């Protein structure tokens, strides 16, 4: 899977959150682009990048309930009507569109009756509408609230949650999570110190065995349910 990450942030280098995401990027399969680093957009190149990607991620902090200005500027230049749907070719069809949005307010503020009295899904409606218009698949938004208040354990979890959001098959089921980890395990085991490598291989074997056992249990259960239906 090829993922294109488009970041809209006027002070990218000064943002600890954005730098954390940048440091967490998976080693392969992801192209990262700052929309604020360009004064004008090379439309052909931007459109080619969109055509090549399987998943497109828009990443930005929430400024007054919307993305920073550079995203709108990029949309106006690159997402021309002809490109998106005008000639009825829909070059973005079946690609996935996701959003990684960061907020200064806690998660509980973004609900009816909460401090912000609006949900993140409501705020993302224009982008979801764009995905619909372009015949794309909309991914559930990944919202990261109050990054600076996260402790080390939460930040560790965020690294992999972010990587999975960028590169794991949707939907986010246990089966897809297992497959994501299984695909990365051999390379991670190879990176281990020599003394840990044998353990790494045993861990891999045990996890595979657990996944197989789960599958067998699900098959048994499906069979019982089928008999119950008779």
């Amino acid at each position, binding site marked *: 899977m090829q993922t294109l990450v488009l970041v809209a942030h006027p002070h990218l280098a000064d943002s600890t959150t954005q730098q954390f995401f940048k*440091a*967490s990027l998976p080693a392969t399969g992801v192209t990262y682009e700052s929309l604020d680093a360009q004064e004008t957009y090379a439309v052909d190149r931007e459109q080619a990048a969109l055509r090549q990607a399987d998943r497109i991620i828009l990443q930005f902090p929430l400024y007054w309930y919307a993305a920073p200005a550079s995203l709108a500027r990029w949309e106006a230049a690159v997402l021309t009507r002809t490109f998106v749907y005008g000639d009825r070719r829909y070059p973005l069809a079946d690609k996935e569109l996701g959003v990684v949005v960061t907020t200064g307010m806690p998660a509980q503020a973004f609900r009816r009756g909460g401090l912000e009295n609006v949900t993140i899904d409501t705020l993302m409606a224009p982008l979801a509408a764009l995905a619909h218009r372009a015949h794309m698949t909309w991914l559930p938004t990944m919202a990261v609230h109050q990054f600076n208040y996260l402790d080390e354990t939460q930040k560790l979890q965020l*690294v992999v949650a972010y990587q999975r959001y960028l590169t794991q098959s949707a939907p986010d089921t246990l089966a897809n999570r297992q497959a994501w980890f299984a695909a990365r395990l051999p390379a*991670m085991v190879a990176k281990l110190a020599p003394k*840990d490598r044998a353990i790494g291989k045993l861990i891999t074997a045990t996890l595979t065995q*657990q996944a197989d056992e789960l599958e067998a249990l699900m098959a048994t259960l499906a069979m019982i349910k089928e008999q119950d239906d008779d």
Partner: protein
Amino acid sequence: MTDNQAWLHQQLQTVAQHQTKFTDRAFWVALDHLAAEQAQRQDQLQGEIDGRTWRPDKW
């Protein structure tokens, strides 16, 4: 938690602690969470199978 699951949890924590790079440690910690999730799902499935198999009305 079975012996196997407890062993796996311990090994994953040890490997995670040995990592100097933050993102590498994150991978092993997340893998530990996945293993816990597998164990929980296994428990639930086994429970449902037991529950559905235990049907005195079908004796």
